[in-house]
């Protein structure tokens, strides 16, 4: 469906609500205990209460990176439920080398995947996107991009960054065993408490969604979301594009919440319109009418509310060993002795590991590598923004590696159609195939030992990108600017 069609149909949505089956709305309106989107969706999916706050929930989508679970169960003769709610994307282990389509020795896992994919399709698991499929990519990019992740769903997967999909106005979490879901189409889950993070104020020039969420985690702490499902709200979130909202929800798990959400709105529906697995023309109006009942009510009650004021906040970069160690680009590296007592030990460890000097500016710190990719910020709008920074400039000669890894084959194709690949290559970046790549290194792409890498990914734990590597988390444009400068740079001087 084209954007024009969407606008036409959404005008009539008010009438459609009344024409829509009453039972589903009744369920949502009366059972959403306190009017939050999370609770409305949760309650509409309860198959049975298993005592206390533990419920058996219906699952609408389940993602798996490997076909092993499916095939093992099939061989054991187990009856599997609802194959259409599954999709498989082996994103973690494929090679991102341009030679991956011709060199059989590159990457791992995909060979077995290809052997099983046909068999899976015959069993009804039609959505198996191997590395040769145009829809292949990082699962958290592919889900929304193909329209498989839709408002109002319960979505689960093994990967912890499954919280990304919550930006579509659904509830999702990682750490689920897909084999369990396959057998019954349900999961057992303890109901979390709810927290709303209101993002307010004005975004300064050069500030992106990644800066917003890094600032949020720095303010609230990496363990602040334990036991909560988080909804990001407020005027700034409303004004963000759909792709930027994914970046926010992606890092929910870095504040220890397995679920991050944004209430859906026209931005969401417009993003979804016309995508392959989005509701077809036949059901579109009905679906939009349903989605409009999902957002958190004005009088909803959350167990906890937090407010983050973005006014005056600079581009954020991390100096230490967890995402909470984020500071403004013109701030100085903190002194562990001045840190809150309960954080001193971690600060000392971080200073020692990162080989930085307390009191020194972070701006201008020399770097060895940069990485643009990952499920946070590798969508087309991110690549466009990065290309705008590097166009007509050159990557510093001191860098040993500067990679751009598109989030999916579709993003890559779109970027190439727009000529972004040529911009990156002319600047001295390596333009790679899609996949998880250096964010995590399980495909063999990793940062060289001892190197400092400015990365737009989501984790800077010790050794995350490779042994003895220092990761500086930053927005995609800050990464692009730092690549040009050869050191940690203020993107605002490149605008």
């Amino acid at each position: 469906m084209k954007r024009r069609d969407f606008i036409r149909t959404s005008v009539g949505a008010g009438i459609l609500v009344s024409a829509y089956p009453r039972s589903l709305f009744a369920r949502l309106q009366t059972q959403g205990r306190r009017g939050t989107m999370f609770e409305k969706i949760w309650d509409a999916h309860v198959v049975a209460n298993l005592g206390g706050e533990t419920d058996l929930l219906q699952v609408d989508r389940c993602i798996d990176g490997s076909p092993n679970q499916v095939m093992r169960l099939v061989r054991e003769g187990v009856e599997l439920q609802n194959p259409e709610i599954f999709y498989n994307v082996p994103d973690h282990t494929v090679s991102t080398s341009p030679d991956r389509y011709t060199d059989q020795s590159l990457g791992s896992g995909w060979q077995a995947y290809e052997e099983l994919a046909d068999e899976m399709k015959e069993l009804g698991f039609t959505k198996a996107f191997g590395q040769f499929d145009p829809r292949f990519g990082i699962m958290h990019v592919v889900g929304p991009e193909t329209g498989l992740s839709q408002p109002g769903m319960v979505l689960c997967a093994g990967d912890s960054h499954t919280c990304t999909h919550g930006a579509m106005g659904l509830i999702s979490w990682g750490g689920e065993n897909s084999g369990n879901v396959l057998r019954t189409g349900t999961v057992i889950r303890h109901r979390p408490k709810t927290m709303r993070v209101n993002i307010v104020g004005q975004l300064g020039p050069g500030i992106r969604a990644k800066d917003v969420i890094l600032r949020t985690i720095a303010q609230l702490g990496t363990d602040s979301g334990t036991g909560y499902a988080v909804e990001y709200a407020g005027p700034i979130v409303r004004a963000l594009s759909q792709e930027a909202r994914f970046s926010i929800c992606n890092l929910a798990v870095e504040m220890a919440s397995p679920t991050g959400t944004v209430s859906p709105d026209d931005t969401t529906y417009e993003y979804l319109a016309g995508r392959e697995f989005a509701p077809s023309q036949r059901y579109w109006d009905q679906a939009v009418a349903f989605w409009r009942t999902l957002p958190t009510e004005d009088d909803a009650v959350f167990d906890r509310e937090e407010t983050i004021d973005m006014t005056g906040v600079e581009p954020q970069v991390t100096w230490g060993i967890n995402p909470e160690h984020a500071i403004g680009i013109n701030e100085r590296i903190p002194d562990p002795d001045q840190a809150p007592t309960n954080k001193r030990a971690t600060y000392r460890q971080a200073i020692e590991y990162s080989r930085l000097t307390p009191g020194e500016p972070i701006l201008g710190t020399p770097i060895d590598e940069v990485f643009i990719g990952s499920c946070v910020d590798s969508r087309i709008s991110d690549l466009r923004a990065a290309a705008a920074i590097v166009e007509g400039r050159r990557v510093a000669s001191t860098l040993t590696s500067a990679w751009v890894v598109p989030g999916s084959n579709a993003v890559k194709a779109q970027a190439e159609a727009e000529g972004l690949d040529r911009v990156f290559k002319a600047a001295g970046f390596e333009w790679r195939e899609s996949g998880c790549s250096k964010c995590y290194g399980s495909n063999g792409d990793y940062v060289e030992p001892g190197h400092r890498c400015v990365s737009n990914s989501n984790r800077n734990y010790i050794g995350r990108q490779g042994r003895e590597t220092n990761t500086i988390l930053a927005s995609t444009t800050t990464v692009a600017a730092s690549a040009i400068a050869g050191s940690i740079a203020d993107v605002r001087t490149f605008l």
Partner: protein
Amino acid sequence: MIRVTRSAEAPAAVAQPSLRFVRHTGIAAPFRQPNLESELIAPVGVELADLHAVHLDPDTVRIEPHPHDGSWTGQHAFHGFRYRPDGTQNPDFVLNKAPYREASILIAGRNFGQGSQQAFAVIRLLECGMRVIIAPSFGPVFHDDCFDFGLLPVMLDEQVVSRLTNRVRANPEIEVTADLARQVIERPGMTPLPFQIDPRRRRSLLQGKDATLDERLEHRDSAEAMRERDRRLRPWIYDGPDRREP
């Protein structure tokens, strides 16, 4: 260095872990570093890629021996602690010392296994012989993963873990027992330490299979009825007749 080879005849030397856990007795090794990331348990790099390859394709992928010690299973857990940068063993690391070399119980620090490694931290620990991890708290994803692979995570108060650590350090050769059936940690000469664990997970470990399956199957009729109703109410999320085949 390509260390992953695909082989038609030789299956990988991958131990299929038992998912059953009732009771285990063994040497306990204290390694109390807090907030130990799963990245440090199963390091990122060549070995992680190897492990992924075996996991995804256990029938045909074989891994060549590690150059340092001739093995590939086990020895790579805690790689950064176990080896010095030049590849030789670090004699100061607890698991490189006797009798901890034989340890099968790890006494760890708070928030053990934070972050997420798609279960590879758990697999690495099992492959180096660990069956029980005792810690004041665990990273949530690591904790979930333990139950999928039959590794027992035991949560005890920080002070209790410290007391246990002191006793173990005083007489490291005295074995410790983790009894899931009775929910206690025991050691000769020590008052048994009771621990709490989610009853569903305990049942699953004791039976060696996902005990929640039966519970979920009990509600199968309700689940199917709900799904049928949902197909009518939200036909667009299912592959309907209008959904073009990919």
